């Protein structure tokens, strides 16, 4: 299982198009947004814009890293018959799915770390020392629902379809979840939608930490509920991955 996990991680980190999309894009967006909206004296989420936007873009990048690493790849692996071949080895289907889940979760890290680093170096963001690792771990852990969503997408859509579907879900979650613009400036009905989305609560977790306070339990619970729902769906549809007998 360990060797399969290592190879999954290695092939993900070797994929330049993937890295450009899930790391390059959020880092670029961070530099743009924090420069445009970073005027001294502005406040957002009770934070300096360079910090508030750092957290939002870290959540955006993490979510993309996880979604793109799970759904589209799983769909492709299914389509080319790799999952079928893998199911004829002693590696059990549950372990295959566990590897995919861990791989996806791990791939939240490059974007988070690079955005935090960019903020610290380019935008002179300073935070109490403990807040840096807390931000990384909390945002990474909060990506669990997206990893499970990826398994659902990879089970039901084919290669190109999965890519498109993932992208749509990614952008909707980012835009409506208040990662690009603060959810307060969205129209009222959309604000209600925002507060139901996992992306919104993922950013909330980070903003709490950046303000130096403990995250509200409610955000964690919403993320857990999304994970439970996606995981339940994944268990139902992952049979389509032909990991085992039909």
């Amino acid at each position, binding site marked *: 299982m360990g060797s399969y996990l290592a*190879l999954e991680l290695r092939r993900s980190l070797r994929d330049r198009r993937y890295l450009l999309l899930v790391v390059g894009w959020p880092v670029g967006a961070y530099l743009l947004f924090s420069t445009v909206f970073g005027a001294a004296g502005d406040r957002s989420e009770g934070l300096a814009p360079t910090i508030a936007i750092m957290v939002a873009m870290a959540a955006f990048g993490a979510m993309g890293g996880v979604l793109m690493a799970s759904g589209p790849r799983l769909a492709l692996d299914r389509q080319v*018959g*790799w999952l079928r*071949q893998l199911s004829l*080895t*002693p590696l059990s289907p549950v372990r295959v799915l566990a590897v995919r889940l861990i791989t996806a979760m791990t791939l939240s890290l490059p974007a988070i770390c690079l955005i935090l680093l960019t903020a610290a170096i380019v935008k002179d963001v300073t935070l109490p020392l403990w807040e840096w690792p807390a931000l990384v771990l909390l945002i990474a852990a909060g990506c669990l629902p997206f990893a499970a969503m990826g398994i659902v997408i990879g089970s039901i859509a084919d290669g190109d379809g999965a890519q498109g579907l993932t992208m749509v879900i990614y952008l909707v979650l980012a835009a409506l979840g208040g990662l690009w613009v603060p959810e307060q400036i969205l129209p009222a009905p959309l604000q209600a939608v925002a507060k139901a989305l996992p992306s919104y609560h993922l950013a909330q977790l980070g903003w709490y930490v950046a303000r130096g306070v403990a995250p509200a339990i409610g955000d964690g619970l919403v993320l857990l509920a999304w994970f439970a729902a996606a995981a339940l769906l994944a268990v139902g549809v992952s049979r389509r991955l032909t990991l085992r007998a039909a």
Partner: protein
Amino acid sequence: MTSETADRSVTSDAVHVDGVSRSFGAVRAVDDVSLGVGRGETVALLGPNGAGKTTTITMVLGLARPDRGTVTVLGMSPEDAVTRGLIGAMLQDGGMMPGVLVGELLAMMRRLFPAPLSLQETIAVAQLEGLEKRRVDRLSRGQSQRLRLAMALIGDPELLILDEPTAAMDVEARRNFWHAMRGFTDRGRTILFSTHYLEEADISADRIVLMARGRVVADGTPSAIKDSVGLRVIRFSVVRPETSGLESLPGVVSASARGNRVELRCRDTDLALRALLSARPDAHDIEVAGIALEDAFLSITDGVAA
């Protein structure tokens, strides 16, 4: 190697398929099929497309469950045999992990099995030398096929299952392939493979299971199968177009007539000819010929239509 082979249990058949049926919608892909493969045997599942070979193989691997009947592999369920790393398989729709190198993929696969071959030996047997650093998605068709073989062999499985393994190969590649397989069976391992080439089954298999339209229509040694098919024919013209009794002449497998021209499918044309001349003095314009293996094979499988 020998001691390791001896350690493994040899109490049951390698493959035991008993009264298995499987339908897809209204189509009965496999219809009451029974077959056995003994340990150390190389058995060919021979038949045209749509005969049910792939479906049978899929059930032997535990990738599909039979609607009826049972499948046992090495004395256990197919799932257990797979979990213990006792089966290696080359599937028609099996694929490679995209985006990794040949060497990386094989090294990873190797660690999934309890008692694998060495990486070097696998690469040598599958003739992949020099391709270790090549991306698996940049291989030619023949190279991909060899990598598939390597993935099937690397666990040093007790039973190797190959679904049309040589379909994409030219004559020389096919010969190399079966040469490599003999190295595998020489160590007491079992092979079940499917093919639609009678010639390949004849040369490579100890036994042929002939399938057509989801059923087993013949099961025996290649020479027995060839005899029952009738690989030589006697054609002649008759005055009375009457074929009854001709089938039972010595050396004759079957008889058919078109107009006043009769064709006898024979396993022994010398014997048949002598008997024919005394039985039917009206036979004239006699011609003895061999027929292509493929034609013989098609005629027997077509005969199962009813």
